């Protein structure tokens, strides 16, 4: 029995691309058909493995964007400069193509919809992907958890899922979405326009006394500075869960 679980966990599955959706000029969502997908929890990721004709293999981790319970699995991938895997996934992949993936994996950066604590999500750039999975899951199960998403991007056009987030933010008990732009702002922009700092977190986050569940995802430098600021504001380090993307460029 343990052997079955083991095989299930270790198996590389062949996913088939059924649709591709451009989110921004450098970000694309890949909709996959994955046979015998075991289901996932919001925040988990998959490992993707590409194999070249000469046998060379490259592996990367990508967060799952679609909420649990859907038939298909969606990954949202940002093309990185010189990224050998992301360039292929964002630039060259076509409908009907197949590639290997392993997952879902990761038991730490996971939100449980039954958790009644307020949910604070902090994203830099494509770090919004696993957090979007949580926001979508929250909507899908009708959870009432007070939820805020602080989302840093360079420009308005770089905000991934912008239209969907605007729609999601309109309903009753909907998540509050707070974008902050670190690059050029559009004319008439009245929102936040700087990197996430301690003052911004103090304004947007619930007080530490309310013990929110906190998930921070993005480039390593952003995640570390946000996590440090949150702890300085009194949040318990154990309630500040982080997912660093590495040096993936500024947001």
């Amino acid at each position, binding site marked *: 029995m*343990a052997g079955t*679980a*083991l095989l299930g*966990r*270790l198996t590389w599955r062949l996913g088939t691309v059924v649709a591709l959706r451009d989110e921004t000029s450098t970000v694309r969502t890949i909709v996959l058909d994955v046979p015998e997908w075991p289901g996932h929890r919001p925040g988990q*990721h*998959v*490992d993707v493995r590409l194999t070249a004709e000469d046998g060379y293999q490259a592996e990367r*981790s990508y967060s799952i964007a679609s909420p649990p319970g859907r038939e298909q699995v969606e990954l949202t991938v940002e093309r990185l400069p*010189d990224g050998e895997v992301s360039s292929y996934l964002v630039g060259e992949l076509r409908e009907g193509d197949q590639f290997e993936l*392993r*997952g879902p*994996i*990761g*038991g*730490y*950066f*996971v939100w449980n919809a039954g958790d009644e604590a307020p949910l604070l999500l902090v994203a830099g750039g494509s770090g919004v992907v696993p957090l979007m999975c949580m926001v979508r899951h929250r909507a899908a199960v009708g959870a009432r958890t007070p939820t805020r998403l602080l989302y840093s991007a360079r420009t308005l056009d770089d905000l991934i899922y912008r239209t969907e987030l605007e729609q999601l933010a309109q309903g009753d008990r909907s998540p509050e979405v707070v974008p902050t732009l670190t690059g050029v702002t559009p004319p008439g922009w009245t929102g936040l326009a700087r990197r996430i700092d301690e003052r911004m977190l103090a304004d947007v986050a619930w007080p530490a006394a309310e013990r929110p569940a906190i998930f921070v995802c993005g480039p*390593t*430098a952003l995640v*570390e500075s946000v996590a440090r600021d949150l702890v300085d504001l009194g949040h318990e380090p*154990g309630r500040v*869960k*982080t*997912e*660093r*993307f*590495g*040096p993936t460029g500024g947001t």
Partner: protein
Amino acid sequence: MPLTDENELRLDGNALAGELGRVFAVDVTAADGRCGHCGRVAPLGAQHLYRYPSAPGAVVRCSACGSMLFVLVDLPDGVRMTIGSLSWLRLAPGG
């Protein structure tokens, strides 16, 4: 890749879940582990992961004291986990 700060390459232990799945039959990224060097107890997923692009393996360090907890290396004859200062792992019931 020009690097000014090696800390830019730091990741979370959570990102190692797939590779750890080759060693353990259950997901250990949510399991608490104790650093034998400083005594800190934290989920493996919250420890610091260093996986350099050119390196053959991954190094997991204590997020409090930086001591090397364990190393996972892919070798021709299999995946090898070398235990450093990790003194214990605790799996929650049902975990």
